């Protein structure tokens, strides 16, 4: 840290404030942040005033600011809506399952990759594992539909050759959650493992050498050194995951949804789309969206606090 301070260029007309001085010194590096900042300002902060719609009787001609106020009417309407409990239950169920099975998957993959000593094989395997991340959900779900179709699908073709009846996988409510979780893991596991792999490389090799000298086996090295060293990373990612528990994955669910699985697949985000954009109840759907955001905010604050107390790791 001290060494880096020493090589800092002395900027001409540098501001007096220490932080600003540092920013000025690294101004070209900071310039790289500009596109992301601009993106956030335009697409994340500027539209935020739209949440006002949740409290208004939105009229096309009066716009968001001009429409008359309605107070908490739409929030009450949602809480009294007969779909409320179903939608909330489905959202929480899908998120909980994704958390339960999807959260440890990248960690396990990273640990497995870490044990591969053949560098070339490791790189190839890692590349293949994170490629699905770049395939959009539209493509993934279309592939699923094709593979699992009761009429032209590969799986059912095999079943029929074996003399078994075809199964409508995408239309079976019992199979909906397993399909959602498995496809989610398939798509995200490789990408998620990258963070853990980066954290793994940061573990001091001396610790492993010392453990080896002490005669520790693979499992005890894993539980006594690797996992404890990864705890801060795991904690941070868990905080993020828990705060997003009401985001069950709009693209994936909306595309995988069929009338046959509606009873288990209608989640907050798909319900917002249907009531808001398709039925034109903008205020009502914004209220639902805002309800979701407030809960997420509360969750992130609480989970962060708990994490800080238990593991001394937190976002802030």
């Amino acid at each position, binding site marked *: 840290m001290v060494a880096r301070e020493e090589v800092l260029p002395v900027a001409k007309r540098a501001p007096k404030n220490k932080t600003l001085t540092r920013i000025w010194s690294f101004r070209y590096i900071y310039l790289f942040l500009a596109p992301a900042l601009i993106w956030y300002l335009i697409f994340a902060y500027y539209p935020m005033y739209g949440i006002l719609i949740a409290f208004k009787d939105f009229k096309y001609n009066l716009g968001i600011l001009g429409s008359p106020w309605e107070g908490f009417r739409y929030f009450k309407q949602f809480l009294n809506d007969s779909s409320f409990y179903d939608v909330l239950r489905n959202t929480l169920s899908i998120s909980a399952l994704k958390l339960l099975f999807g959260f440890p998957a990248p960690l396990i993959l990273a640990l497995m990759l870490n044990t591969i000593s053949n560098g070339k094989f490791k790189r190839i395997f890692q590349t293949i594992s994170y490629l699905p991340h770049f395939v959009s959900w539209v493509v993934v779900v279309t592939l699923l539909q094709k593979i699992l179709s009761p009429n032209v699908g590969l799986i059912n073709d095999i079943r029929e050759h074996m003399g078994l009846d075809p199964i409508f996988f995408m239309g079976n409510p019992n199979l909906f959650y397993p399909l959602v979780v498995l496809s989610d893991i398939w798509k995200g596991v490789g990408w998620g493992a990258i963070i853990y792999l980066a954290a793994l490389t940061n573990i001091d090799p001396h610790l492993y050498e010392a453990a080896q000298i002490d005669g520790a086996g693979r499992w005890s090295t894993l539980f006594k050194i690797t996992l404890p060293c990864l705890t801060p990373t795991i904690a941070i990612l868990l905080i993020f995951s828990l705060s997003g528990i009401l985001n069950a994955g709009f693209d994936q669910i909306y595309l995988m949804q069929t*009338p046959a699985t509606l009873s288990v697949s209608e989640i907050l985000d798909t319900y917002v789309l249907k009531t808001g954009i*398709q039925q034109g109840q903008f205020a009502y759907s914004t209220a639902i969206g805002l309800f979701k955001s407030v809960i997420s905010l509360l969750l992130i604050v609480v989970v962060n606090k708990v994490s800080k107390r238990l593991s001394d790791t937190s976002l802030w």
Partner: protein
Amino acid sequence: MKMANKRLKKVLGMSIAVPLLLSAATACSSNSNDNSGGQNGASASSSASNGASASSSAKGGDKPEQVTLSFLSNWNGGGGSFPQDQVNNPVAQRVKEVTGVTLKMESITTNETEKLNTIFASGTVPDMVNAPFWSTTSGEGQVIKKAALEGQLLDLTPYLDKYPNVKKLMTTGVAKDFSEFEMNSPDFQGKNYVIPMQTPDGSVESIHNWNYGLYARGDILKALNVNPEDIDTEDKLYDLLVKIKNGNFKDISGKPVIPAGTMHDGWDYGQFLKGWSDYTISDYRQGSDGKLQFWMFSKDEEDKLMYMRKILAGGLFDPEAFSNTDTMANEKLATGKLAVFAAQDMVGQLDKTLYKTNPEMQYELLGPLKNKSGKIATQVEKPGRSGFPVIFLSAKIKNPDAALRFLDYINSDEGRLLAYWGIEGKDYQMENGKPKWIPDVKQKYDNDPDSKRDAGLNYLNANFIGGFSSDVTWPKSEDEKTKAEKLQASFSAKMPIQVIDKVSANYLAWSWPKWKQYQDATVSLNYADEFKKALFAKSDDQALKILHDIQDKYRAAGAEEMTDYVAQEAAKRDDIGF
């Protein structure tokens, strides 16, 4: 060396960061460029104030002002009629010559209501839009009405006298009750916002027969020795599907057929349930005791649900039917995968695909099924049409006269000839006052329907014409009809349209004191979705529970009280039809 390194870093840093920044900035500003382009177009159009009729300009008057108008066909897949070159095809060139209007057309491949909500909420309404307008109390029509009342649509009233052909569209072929209650609802305070399209010319003969029905693959019927006309009850239909399933029939790739299915999103599985239908024009059903009942509370709904569940459970109906995309459905159609399908006749698509490769599979109309009264289930219409596509203009359109001049011309005799027949001398010739295709051109269009589309011969009649029937105006002799047209005509002949000249009882509910309250309570209820959900429920009991739950929600909203009110009001008049 250190200085040189630093400089190099600086240069490299700048060379990467600046393009990144610029790309972000240009990405943000590309919209505004588009807008300014649009505004340029609009401002070019804004200076036009020529109210003179298009035809007079064409006949040697002043050259009409050149205007580019944006047009949205707000129909899922509505771009199918657009020529590949929207500007330079002969028909568009002629339209431009006469009216000065060039269209910049777009369409959607998503939900129609969703798109309408999006354009109105974001204030990006194209100059001219063609959208569904089935009713002002639900779906797209409700959104259009809200937008009209909230200042998003142009009031056409002051312009109508200047454009007689457009004015005529406002009433021609429109059902009286629809005109009174929906188009001219008191809420509109005498203003006109929508122009009816695809309406008949006022005669019964000109009402379009959509040929909705059940169609079965001819070779399968032949193999089973089944006469399609004999399949006229739900039981016979079920037996046929069982026979097909057991018959081990294959599609063109040698894979097993699906006994029954539909086009995209389950359209139109209701054809399988026509045995429970009747000739109705409202949401109310009269029981044998004379008591009026709201349609969804009828015992028939349970029977329909159980029938569909039976064919689904028996592997007789495509479980994917309700999640079929248009592409998936077309693939099934093109490969003869569906032994029986329910929809319109789909001859247009089949003619380009399956009928070319496997003409022996040509589909035949089943039945028609008999309805509850023992009469054939067929299309029921009032003398005019209730619910149709409409054209509306954006309140922000810079040159409404250009749009109306265009519509007025297309709906003139000359414009219709251009829309349906193309360019005289190139596509057709007049013989005894009637257009006749030039033989080579006809053959080319028959062999390659896309070439007809690209010559500009589909988009005008699909989007901009109303109060008209080409079949009535230019009846074709049998010799002139294509094989596909003959086939379609044969289906229509078996399902003649039933006309009921009454006012729909639906409109009586509008004066019910709790009507608004009822609408608010039911706006987020979706009976059709719940019915589909019930089709796939684990058990019959669960299915019935889903059905009863949604029925109860409508009951709780006051549907029964509303029905009683309608019955009372209907008793006071003799022109009400159920």
